């Protein structure tokens, strides 16, 4: 210490003498809770990816049925069970509108003279003419009356676009076809006993009949179902319904869960005890029991399924909110507000509940995929909605029709629901990390 005593005083100068010292103004912007959450969310690449996929699916669920497809409800007798044909992918051999037949017993072929069985392309030959009696499951080829087993595939779209003979159609039907320009050549008029009701035999161009201008235009992106309805439109309409179920369940769950949990957690004591026992008993019922009872009672519709899902799902939310209330209700700032005369409702909603906002947002995001999942599961069990479409219904229907023969009916809804689950989970996980204050600045 002594050595410093001899330093000359002139070597020192005042930092400030007359001016006042102020805190420096922050040059950076203050980042609030949500600003910080967004910043941390964006940094998490997989969550952002999940979010983007999710937004894309939601957009498609809204506009998908109206673009690129052929309407949800129109039935096309001529174009039932069309395989998927996606123009860009068809060059790669995926979804190219062909149907494969494996190990078919073949007895009879109409155009056997035109085909050389020793030819390598034999199996890939365009085998339409061998389809007799409209029986597509059994291809019948006569090969000197010997039964041969062949694997082959053919272009379903080429086959279905061939003109076909329509017998005994009425005048109005004939005029209808003629207006569309679908009639090829002259019709044969059949004289019936009633002069006023003529019947016709016509050669019909199916493309024109259903409003396709050319072969290039003639494709169903996801194929068609057994009634000739466009699967592309149906899949997106089903996605919409599933998302709506999820959204509805999430909204009701959050509302009920937050209110129940708030009351239970805020008042505590006997109120809490009774409310917790009630919730405990309700949560003890397995969802399959609730689902069965609700469906038996209210029938299989969107409302009853959403209700059944809500009946148990709110308990998790209410437990979470309740524990938040237990943590915060004794804090000094709450006490201060109470001393200042704040009413219970103000304390609950203004002072304590915002603490639980992060977990509430996260859980509401994660409830949606679990509701969609449960709904699909119920559809698979045969208890699902009886009218309309949902992803689960489409999956179950495709399954019932037969997945080996018509895989595209199941594959596309399966892809959509998987993408939906993955993106919701990624998004929810990212949200959970971003909204968790304890992880703030941890990375």
């Amino acid at each position, binding site marked *: 210490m002594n050595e410093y005593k001899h330093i000359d005083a002139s070597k020192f100068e005042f930092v400030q003498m007359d001016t006042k010292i102020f805190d420096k103004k922050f040059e950076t912007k203050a980042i609030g809770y949500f600003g910080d959450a967004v910043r941390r969310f964006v940094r998490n690449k997989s969550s952002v990816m999940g979010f983007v996929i999710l937004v894309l699916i939601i957009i498609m669920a809204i506009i998908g049925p109206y673009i690129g497809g052929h309407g949800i409800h129109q039935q096309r007798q001529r174009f039932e069970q069309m395989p998927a044909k996606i123009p860009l992918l068809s060059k790669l051999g995926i979804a190219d509108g062909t149907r494969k037949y494996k190990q078919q017993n073949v007895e009879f072929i109409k155009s056997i003279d035109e085909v050389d069985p020793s030819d390598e392309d034999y199996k890939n030959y365009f085998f339409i003419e061998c389809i007799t009696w409209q029986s597509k499951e059994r291809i019948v080829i006569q090969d000197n009356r010997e039964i041969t087993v062949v694997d082959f595939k053919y272009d379903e779209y080429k086959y279905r676009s061939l003109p076909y003979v329509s017998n005994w159609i009425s005048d109005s039907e004939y005029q209808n076809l003629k207006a569309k320009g679908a009639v090829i050549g002259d019709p044969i008029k059949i004289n019936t006993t009633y002069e006023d009701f003529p019947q016709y035999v016509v050669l019909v161009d199916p493309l024109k009949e259903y409003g396709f201008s050319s072969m290039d235009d003639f494709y169903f992106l996801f194929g068609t179902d057994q009634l000739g309805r466009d699967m592309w439109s149906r899949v997106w309409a089903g996605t919409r319904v599933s998302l709506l179920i999820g959204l509805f369940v999430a909204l009701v769950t959050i509302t009920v869960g937050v209110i129940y949990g708030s009351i239970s957690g805020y008042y505590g004591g006997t109120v809490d005890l009774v409310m917790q026992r009630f919730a405990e*008993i309700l949560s*003890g019922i397995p969802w399959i029991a609730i689902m*069965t*009872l609700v469906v038996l009672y209210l029938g299989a519709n969107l409302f009853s399924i959403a209700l059944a899902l809500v009946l148990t799902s709110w308990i998790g939310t209410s437990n979470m909110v309740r524990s938040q209330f237990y943590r915060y209700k004794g804090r000094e700032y709450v006490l201060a507000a109470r001393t200042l005369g704040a009413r219970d409702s103000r304390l609950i909603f203004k002072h304590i509940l915002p603490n639980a906002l992060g977990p509430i947002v996260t859980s509401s995001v994660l409830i949606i*995929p679990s509701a969609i*999942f449960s709904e699909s599961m119920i559809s698979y069990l*045969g208890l699902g909605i009886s009218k309309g479409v949902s992803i689960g219904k489409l999956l179950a229907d495709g399954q019932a029709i037969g997945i*080996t023969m018509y895989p595209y009916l199941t594959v596309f809804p399966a892809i959509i*629901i*998987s993408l939906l689950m993955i993106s919701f989970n990624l998004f929810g996980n990212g949200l959970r990390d971003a909204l968790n204050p304890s992880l703030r600045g941890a990375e």
Partner: protein
Amino acid sequence: MIKYTGKRIVLIFVTLFIILSLSFFLIKLLPDNTELSYLLNKVSKEDYELMRKRWGYDQPLFIQYLHWLKNVVFHWNWGVSTHTRIGENTFVLITEKLPITMRLNLISLFFSIPFGVLFGIVAALRKNKPIDYIISVFVILFISIPSFVVVTMFMLNAANMGLPIQYRPSDQVTLADMVIPVLSLSFGPIAVLTRYTRAELTEVLTSDFILLARTKGLNRFHSTVRHALRNSMVPLVPIIIGNFIGILFGSLVIERVYGVPGVAGILIESIDVKDYNLTMTALAFYTIIGLIATLVIDLTYGIVDPRIRMGSRK
């Protein structure tokens, strides 16, 4: 702990009683309750009246309920099947199908444990390395993709893999029939177990006593196997029981899709044909298992980690 366990067990019985009573009334009060009317086509009018009388359907609902309750509690008699196999005790019907379901579920469970733990350990030891990222991608996929989608995809490719496309009748069942349902059922549990094992093990590996073990001179292998693994395995017990419940309920759908003649089929079929006694018994089966599992999970949390005091006051 004992007091808490006792309380929980009493509560289970209360819950069970409430659920079963509620289900009984809700099912029997159904507006289109035609449980027996189809019998009229099969038997004569007199026989029909006799059957109604014998099964107590002629009495008021509340009396029926009391009879049913008495039979269940004192005689373990869950009522007769009125459609699936007329006159057979529904409990027998369930227990007949139970082995098929249980065999499938237990194989799935024991298949999922080693793989889940193994992947979790690998991911934890190679944290933030490529293999960890690969595993976490698969974890997200397996957790997200529903089991019924997995089973569908398997069935699509069953022929290529040389597996049966449907569960074959019981006299022809081999191990090959199990492959698809077991794999579909265990993907989810494997992912869940991997995720928890990784989280537990990373936490333990960074804890002080592992540091102590390393400073003592133990090499990485020994410190991991002797100290870290043991400590991280214990909290997995409740997860595994939770997985079992997941498998049990997931099996409802898988069995139906793959055509396995298990308990799931009974439940759905009984609803379709309005064999409501059987529906009740099947629901009771799932309720009881669900309740027991929740209790066991809660209790094991307390046992494996005494720091957690269940039901303690705040």
